[in-house]
C-alpha cells in the first residue's frame, strides 16, 4: 500500500465539501443507544456470572435453595405480562409508521399497564420471599438471586418512567425527530429487557427450580 493509503489523483482532488451536512440524527442517536445497551448487556452478563459462581449448594449456607422457593408457574405470569407489554409496544410502533398518533399512544399505554403488572407481580414475589425469611442477608446464593432479579426489575421501573414521558411528549408534540428517535431507542431498551428476562427466567427460575 502506498504511503498515502489509496490517495486519489491530486488533479481530480476535491478539497472541501461545502454542502456536507453531516450525519442523520436518528441513526446517530440509535447507534449510541445501541452501544449503551451493549454495556447494559455486560452488566447482566457479569451478574449472571456472579449468580453462576454463587449457585452451588454451599453458597446457600444450609438455607433455602431456589428449588425450594421459586415458583416457575407464578413467574410465568410475569413472563407473559412482559412479553405482552413488548407486543403492545410493537403495535404502537406499527401505528407510528402509519402516522397514527392515537394508535401509538394506546400501544404505549398497553405497554405501560402490562409493565406495571410485571413489576407488581415481582414486588409481590419479593414480599412473599421476605415473609419466608428469604432476603439478601440469608445467604450468598439468595443475595445473587435477589440482586440479579431486582436489577432487572429496576430496569423495568426506569423503562416505565420513560414510557410515561414518551406518552406525554407524543401527546403534546406529535412525531418529531426527537420523539421518534426516542421511541426507537425505547423500543430497543424494552426489547432488550424482555430478552434478558428470557435468560433470567430460564437460568434463574427454571434451572433453579429443577436443580
Amino acid at each position: 500500500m502506498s504511503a498515502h493509503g489509496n490517495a486519489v489523483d491530486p488533479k481530480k482532488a476535491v478539497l472541501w465539501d461545502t454542502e456536507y451536512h453531516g450525519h442523520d440524527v436518528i441513526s446517530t442517536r440509535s447507534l449510541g443507544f445501541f452501544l449503551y445497551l451493549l454495556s447494559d448487556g455486560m452488566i447482566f452478563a457479569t451478574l449472571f456470572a456472579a449468580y453462576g459462581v454463587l449457585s452451588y449448594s454451599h453458597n446457600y449456607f444450609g438455607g433455602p435453595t431456589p428449588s425450594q422457593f421459586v415458583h416457575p408457574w407464578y413467574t410465568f405470569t410475569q413472563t407473559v405480562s412482559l412479553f405482552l407489554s413488548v407486543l403492545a409496544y410493537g403495535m404502537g410502533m406499527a401505528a407510528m409508521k402509519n402516522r397514527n398518533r392515537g394508535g401509538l399512544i394506546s400501544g404505549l399505554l398497553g405497554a405501560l399497564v402490562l409493565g406495571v403488572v410485571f413489576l407488581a407481580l415481582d414486588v409481590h414475589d419479593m414480599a412473599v420471599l421476605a415473609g419466608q425469611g428469604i432476603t439478601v442477608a440469608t445467604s450468598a446464593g439468595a443475595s445473587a438471586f435477589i440482586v440479579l432479579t431486582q436489577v432487572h426489575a429496576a430496569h423495568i421501573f426506569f423503562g416505565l418512567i420513560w414510557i410515561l414521558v414518551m406518552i406525554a411528549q407524543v401527546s403534546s408534540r406529535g412525531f418529531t425527530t426527537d420523539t421518534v428517535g426516542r421511541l426507537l431507542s425505547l423500543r430497543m431498551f424494552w426489547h432488550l429487557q424482555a430478552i434478558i428476562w428470557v435468560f433470567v427466567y430460564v437460568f434463574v427460575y427454571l434451572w433453579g427450580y429443577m436443580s
Partner: protein
Amino acid sequence: MLVQLPGGWNPLLGRLALDQIPYDNPILAPLFVAVVVGTILLFGLITYYRKWGYLWKEWLTTVDHKKLGVMYIIIGLVMLFRGFIDGLMIRTQQVWANGPHSSGVFGALHGYLTPFHFGQVYSAHGLIMILLAATPLLVGFMNIIVPIQIGARDMAYPYLNALGLWITAAAAVLIMISLFVGDFAHNGWFGYAPIFELQYSPGVGVDYWIWTLQLTALGTTLGGINLLVTIIKMRAPGMTWFRLPIFVWTSLSANIIALTSFPALQVALGLVAADRYLGSHFFTAGFGGNLMLYTNLFWIWGHPEVYFVILPAFGMMSEIFPTFSEKPLFGYVTMVAASFAIAGVSWMVWLHHFFTMGAGPQVNSFFSVATMLVGIPTGVKVFNWAFTMYRGRITYSAAMLWAIGALFMLLVGGMTGMMLAIPAINYMVHNSVFVIAHFHSMLLVIVYAIFGSVIFWFPKVFGFRLDEYWAKVMFWLFTAGSALVFVPMYMLGFMGMTRRLDYVFNPAWHPYLEVMEVGIAVYCLSVLAFVVLLYVSIRDRVKNRAGADAWGTARSLEWLAHSPVPFYNFAVTPHVNARDELAWRREHGMDALEPERYVDIHMPSNTGMALYIGALTFVLGFGLTWRIWWLSLLSLAAIILLMIIRSFRGDDGYIITGAELERMEKEALRNRAQADGKYVSGGRGQVAGTAIAYGRNGASMGGDPFNSSRDGI
C-alpha cells in the same frame, strides 16, 4: 432491609458528625486551612477581575469538545499532582520508617504516618493515578483531537460529552472531600474481600472508594459511547476507515474496551455496596460468600482498563514519531491490527493478576500464554515506531523526546511484563515491589506520551507553542526521577521487599530507599519545571505563535484547521483524499487553498444542565457515602427530573450564517499568515517546500504559488 451500623447514625446527617472532621491531624488540618484560603483567594480573584460571567458562558456551560477536553486535562493534571503527593508521602514514610531504631512522630511508631493513614494514602494514590489522572487526561485528548482529526464539527453528542466531564469532576471532588471529611479506604485501590466488608472496615472510607469509582466508571462509559459514535458516524467525506489517523484507531479500540469492561467494574462495586448497605453476602467470609469472585470480577475490568489507558498513549506516540521523523508512519495497517489485537487479548488475561489464587496449572498456563501473546502486537508497534524513525529526518524536539522516553519505558515495562507472565516467576515476585516497578514503568509510558502530547497539541488548542527549553528541562528531570525511583524498586523487588509496607523491617534495603527518595526529589523539580514551562510559555506566547501546522511537518487533518481551532473546527468540511491528508495536500501544494464559499452551519447551544446534573451526582455520592438517605433520594429524583425536563426542552442549536463564518475565517487566516512557520526545529531548520516521505521533493512543485505563507522561512 438496611444493615445495622456499628457507629452512630441520625436521619438528618446520616453518619456525618463533628468527630469525622480530622481537625487534630497534623498533616490534614494545615492542608485544609491552605485549601480553604486558596479557594477563597481564587474566588476573590475571579470576582475582582469580574470573570464569573466569562467562566460561566465560556467554560462551565460549554458543550464545545475542545473546551471540555481542556477541562478534562486540567482535572487530570490536578489529580496527577495529588497522586504524586501521595507517592511522595509513601516514599518518605518508607525511607523514614526503616528498621527498629527509626523514629516516629504524629502518633506513628515509625515514620510519620500511622498504618491506617498509610493505607489510605496508597489506596488513594492508585485510584487517583489510574482513574482520575490517566483516564481524564487521555479522555481529554481524545475529546479534543479525535473530532478534528476526522473532520467533524463536534462530538456526536455534545451535551453527553459535557455530562461525562461533570460526572468525572464530581468523582474528583468526592475523593478530595474524603481528605477532610471522614477518611478514605485503606484496602488498596482495587480492594480485597473481605476486608472491605462493613465488619472489618466500619468507617466511610470504603464507601467513598465505592462511589468515587462508580462515578468515574459512569463518566468514562458515557464518554466511551460518545467517542465510538463520533468515530463511526461523524467522519468527513472521504475519511475512509483506512485513512483514519492511528490516534483515532487507538481511541476506537480503547473505547470498545471501556464500553465493554466498565460495566463489570460497576457490577463488582455494586455488589460490594450491596454487601455493605443491604447486608448481602456476595464477598463475605461466611454465609456462602466467595472472596475470589470479587477479585475476578474486579480484574475482568481491571486488566482491559490497563489497555484502555495504554492504547491512546500508543496512538499519541504514533502521531508524534512521524511528525518529527518527517516520514509517514511505518506499517499503518499492522498498527491498526496490533491495536485491535491488544484490545481483544485484553479480555483473556485478567487472571495473571492473581496466579497465586491456586487455580491449577491448566488455568494458569492458559492465562500465562494469553498474557505473553500481548507481547506480539506490542512488539509490532515498537518495531513500527523504530522503523518510522529509521532513516527519517529526526528532530529532537521536546515532544519527540517524550515519545522516545515512552518507547524506552515500554521496553522496560514490557520485558518485565513478559517475566511476570510466567507463573513460576510470578509466584516468586507476587506482591513484591518488582510488580509495582513493572506497572509503574507501563503507566509511565502513558505519562510520557501524555506530556509529549501536551507539548505536541498545545499549539493546536491555544495557538502558541510551549517553550522548548523548559519542556526539555522538564523531560530530563522527569527521566532522571523515573530512573532513580524505579531502578532501585526493581532491585528491591528481587530482594524480596513486598508492596505497601508502612514499616520497612530490613535495614539492608535502606540505601535503595534513599536513592528512591532522591528520585522523588528530582520528580519534585520536574513538577517545578512544568510550572516554569507554563509560565514562560504564556509570557512568550506572542513570540511562539503557531500557524495551522505548528511543526511544519505534521501530517493529519487536525493541523489543517486554524491554531487555535475555532469553535466550529472547520468552516467548511474538508474532503479527505488520502491517509495523512495534510502531508498529502502539502506535497501537492494544496495545503493553503481556501474554500470558495461558506454556507450556514449548525452548532449546539450551551447548557448548564450537564453541570447541574454533575453537581447532583456529587451530592448523590456524598449522601450515599454518609448514608444520608433523604439527600440521596432527593438528588437521585432531581437528576431524573432534570433529565426529563431537558428531554422536553430539547436542543435546537443555533445557526452561524455563511457571511459571519466568512468574516471569522478571514480574520483567522490573517492571524495564520502572521504566525505560520516560525518553528525552527533543533538546529537543522526547515526549508521552504517542506520535506515529505523519504526525501525532499516538495521543491519540484516550484515556487509553491498556493503557499505564500511559507516563503522566506
